[in-house]
């Protein structure tokens, strides 16, 4: 109890005190609050992972009813991820914002929203009262909106921020609908009553309820086709916020879906296939669009959609296992999903932080303008490389582990499936492999163009490495990435309780995981270590062999051409040219061209921008149609004050008269009926 009050009081106190401090004190207070909140919640989270469940019922008010606070293993797992990303993001953010010293007021507001976002995300994991959940959700949506529009003087930032703001409120509409529906039927907002309600109501009704929640949470998580806010909001936000958004904010959508899967008792098989279809499309579509992006952060944002898709594949395997009564399959699916949630939070936040470091050094995120940064920023390059390899799902890093668990689930399922599911499995495997290959294409492009070769454009300021303390949280994340890759079994044993909760089998032990598919994780750890040892060994051998030899330095072989310039290098666009030709049907480009003409040509230019086809059909076209329709009433909006007053009077008269007329109208109908 005392912990809950401390948890609630700390941010409020901090918000009141934060404006009073000078810069140093502010940074200190800010980190203190984040760390206090993290310690309180982590203390309980670790115990929940050991199998304890905490339950406190706050009295609440007349409207909300009692507010149950329940921390189980699922919330524990997500709270730990949130804390890890917020602590590293907060420390990185303090250093990142040093470049904006003159914007004192914005920074204070930013810090306050950051603290609010942290606290609301944590409380979302444990609140089990629908109405209070929505309030916390709203706080989270508003505070994250404010953190996104930190550079609000830029028009693009405001535009993306408002896009995000609107879409996150559309999500709230769906969630509100779901909670009110349950409350109407049961008279309570408690999550436990959702279980009772769905067990007693028909299958179709609980299915619709689940879909309602699923749409609401997917809008946050960024499943296709609900993803369109993501590629705008991530590039607009400052780097630490993009990292946190991609790392944990969209994961709260995943948390919501998982939570609903535990409380809504319905036909899990249908749900599983539904999520599988959406997840496969998300992962493929996300990575396909990521490849053609030229803005580094936008590229990473599309990769978030891809990874959410991979997590979704895990969840759907879990649900299908539940529906089939195959506990082992559902354990594998949920374990893969939860582990990938952690892994994605790690490598994606690392990628965004390094992107932020690049932005601060070069003032651009357009990959076509960069190049050769590894010589000026070797540490950032190394960190980016680690995260890039991890996100491609390549050993010895963590991305491989979670993808491996999901693959194991699919290959386990293949031996227990009938014809239709077999075809589905084989196409899911196909999709997952394609995603891996496309991610490799995408990140060799990103790393190769940004860090390697020679600079493609002159950068006006001096490019230098970020200070050590700014990079420190990044090293911590990178260490985690490697650690999970080397000791996967340790993390899987932490997952026993959350997975047991999700697969509805509380007696699930590590022994279930000792089953055939997952005992593999130990040898994978060994193989990963073996790989590293082998590399080190060969490097020594190489040094030994080269110790007496002449090592020359020359310019790159230009196939006989001796005056190469940096403009002749491969660009990001040309690197993916053959890809974008091949997948031309799915992609979409806006091209602007001015051809060179005449004997004495003056100028010519060519520009191409990729655009999102789904966004065009789902967002742009309906909005255009809506605007067109509303445009017909433009004559009302004529700028005449008298008319506006008239509208007001008409409105008031109508409001007053309608109840009067209503009775007359009813009487009139009655009269007709009697006739």
């Amino acid at each position, binding site marked *: 109890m005392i912990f809950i009050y401390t948890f609630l009081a700390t941010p409020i106190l901090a918000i009141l005190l934060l404006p009073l401090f000078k810069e140093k004190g502010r940074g200190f207070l800010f980190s203190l609050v984040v760390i206090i909140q993290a310690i309180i919640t982590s203390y309980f989270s670790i115990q929940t992972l050991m199998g304890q469940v905490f339950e406190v019922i706050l009295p609440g008010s007349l409207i909300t009813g009692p507010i149950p606070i329940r921390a189980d293993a699922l919330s524990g797992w997500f709270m730990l991820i949130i804390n890890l990303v917020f602590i590293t993001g907060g420390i990185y953010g303090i250093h990142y914002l040093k470049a904006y010293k003159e914007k004192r007021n914005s920074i204070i507001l930013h810090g306050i929203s950051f603290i609010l976002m942290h606290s609301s995300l944590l409380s979302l994991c444990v609140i089990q009262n629908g109405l209070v959940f929505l309030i916390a959700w709203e706080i989270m949506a508003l505070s994250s909106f404010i953190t996104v529009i930190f550079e609000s003087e830029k028009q693009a930032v405001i535009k993306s921020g408002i896009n995000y703001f609107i879409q996150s409120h559309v999500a709230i509409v769906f969630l509100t609908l779901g909670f009110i529906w349950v409350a109407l039927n049961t008279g309570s907002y408690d999550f436990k009553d959702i279980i009772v309600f769905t067990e007693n109501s028909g299958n179709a009704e609980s299915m619709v309820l689940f879909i309602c929640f699923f749409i609401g949470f997917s809008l946050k998580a960024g499943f296709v086709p609900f993803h369109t806010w993501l590629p705008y909001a991530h590039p607009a936000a400052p780097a630490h916020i993009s990292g946190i958004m991609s790392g944990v904010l969209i994961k709260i959508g995943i948390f919501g879906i998982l939570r609903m899967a535990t409380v809504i008792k319905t036909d899990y098989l249908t749900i599983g296939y539904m999520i599988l279809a959406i997840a496969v499309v998300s992962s493929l579509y996300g990575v396909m669009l990521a490849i053609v992006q030229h803005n580094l952060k936008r590229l990473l944002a599309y990769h978030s959609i891809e990874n959410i898709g991979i997590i979704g594949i895990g969840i759907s395997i879990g649900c299908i296992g539940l529906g089939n009564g195959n506990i082992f399959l559902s354990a594998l699916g949920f374990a893969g999903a939860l582990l990938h949630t952690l892994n994605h939070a790690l490598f994606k936040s690392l990628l965004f932080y390094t992107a932020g470091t690049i932005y601060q050094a070069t003032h651009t995120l357009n990959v076509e303008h960069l190049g050769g940064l590894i010589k000026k920023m070797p540490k950032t390059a190394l960190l980016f490389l680690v995260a890039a390899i991890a996100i491609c799902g390549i050993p010895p890093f963590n991305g491989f582990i979670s993808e491996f668990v999901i693959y*194991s689930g699919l290959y*386990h399922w293949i031996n227990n499936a009938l014809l239709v599911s077999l075809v589905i499995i084989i196409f899911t495997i196909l999709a997952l492999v394609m995603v891996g*290959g496309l991610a490799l294409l995408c990140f060799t492009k990103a790393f190769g163009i940004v860090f390697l070769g020679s600079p493609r454009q002159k950068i006006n300021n001096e490019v230098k490495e970020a200070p050590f303390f700014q990079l420190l949280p990044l090293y911590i994340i990178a260490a985690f990435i490697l650690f999970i890759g080397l000791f996967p079994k340790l993390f899987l044993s932490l997952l026993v309780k959350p997975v047991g909760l999700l697969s509805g089998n509380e007696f699930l032990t590590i022994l279930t995981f000792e089953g055939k*598919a997952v005992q593999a994780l130990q040898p994978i750890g060994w193989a990963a270590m073996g790989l590293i040892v082998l590399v080190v060994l060969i490097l020594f051998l190489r040094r030994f062999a080269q110790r007496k030899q002449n090592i020359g330095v020359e310019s790159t072989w230009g196939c006989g051409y001796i005056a190469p310039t940096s403009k002749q290098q*491969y660009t990001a666009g040309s690197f993916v040219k053959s890809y974008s030709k091949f997948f031309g049907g799915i992609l979409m480009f806006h091209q602007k061209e001015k051809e060179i003409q005449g004997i004495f040509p003056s100028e010519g230019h060519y520009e191409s921008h990729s655009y999102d086809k789904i966004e065009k059909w789902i967002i742009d076209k309906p909005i255009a149609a809506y605007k067109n329709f509303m445009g017909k009433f433009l004559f009302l909006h004529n700028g005449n004050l008298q008319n506006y007053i008239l509208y007001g009077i008409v409105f008031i008269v109508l409001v007053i008269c309608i109840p009067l007329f209503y009775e007359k109208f009813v009487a009139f109908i009655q009269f007709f009926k009697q006739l």
Partner: protein
Amino acid sequence: MLSFALIVVAGFFFTGIIIRTKSIASGRKGPGIFQPIKDVIRLFRKGSVYSRTTSVIFQIAPTIYFASVIMAIVVVPFGQSKGVISFNGDFIFFAYVLALGKFFNIISAMDTGSSFEGMGASREALYSMFAEPAFFILIGSLALLTGFTSFYEIFSALHVGSYISYAITVLATFVLVMIAMIENSRMPIDDPKTHLELTMIHEVMILDNSGFDFGLILTAGYLKFALYGALIVNLFIGIVRYEYAIPMFFIIQFAMAVAIGLIESFTARFRMSHNAQFIVALTSVSLLIFFGVLLILGKFI
């Protein structure tokens, strides 16, 4: 352990046989079978020249590429004997660890800042992406057929019985040979003997490598051939006893090397723009295997 030793031995002569077959087919005498190995030993003793544009990535990439191939060999079994490491789903590790090598190969080509090498890197990244699904579906079908998910168990449980399973084995061999050709950048995807940088894929990526690093890359290539040869051998030997299995291993490797030499002698390279379609077609062949397996298991009612 046995498989590791055998693959390394096979790697010694595999490329030599290909080159010899090609020279005989074109009416030349050609170099000895061990010439490629002699070349590599010579390279290991040479100094190197590095480009001014390159960074540390260029220095470590060949090492990581070589290590990734070794780690892939480690999981491949030989009939009744397991690989050095064997676990459920080891073929996933196999494919992804090879991807690590590819990743570094590609970025090391980008590191030189040369337009030609960037071109090769772009093609390699695209083609290897298309080749991977075929491999996963092939192994997935075999996993379905046998009910196991590790190389060792799949191969030792693979019994060739009915006509359909003969067809499947033939198709599987075809798919594996083609994957080996794509992964090693041979005909009909890529021509290692072309003299024009614009038409190269793999060769153009390693234009700037020299000395020890170049030796590592070449050795990794030789081993990769023997590696895929070993996978094909495994399709056939199943439960055959060692005294027959080991000679069979070398005979099949030899036959595969000759076959590759002949293919390279008598076909022309595809147009670059047709490569992608060709590789995707490979995926549909492996889907054919999958449906064949469904037939055998009687999943079609």
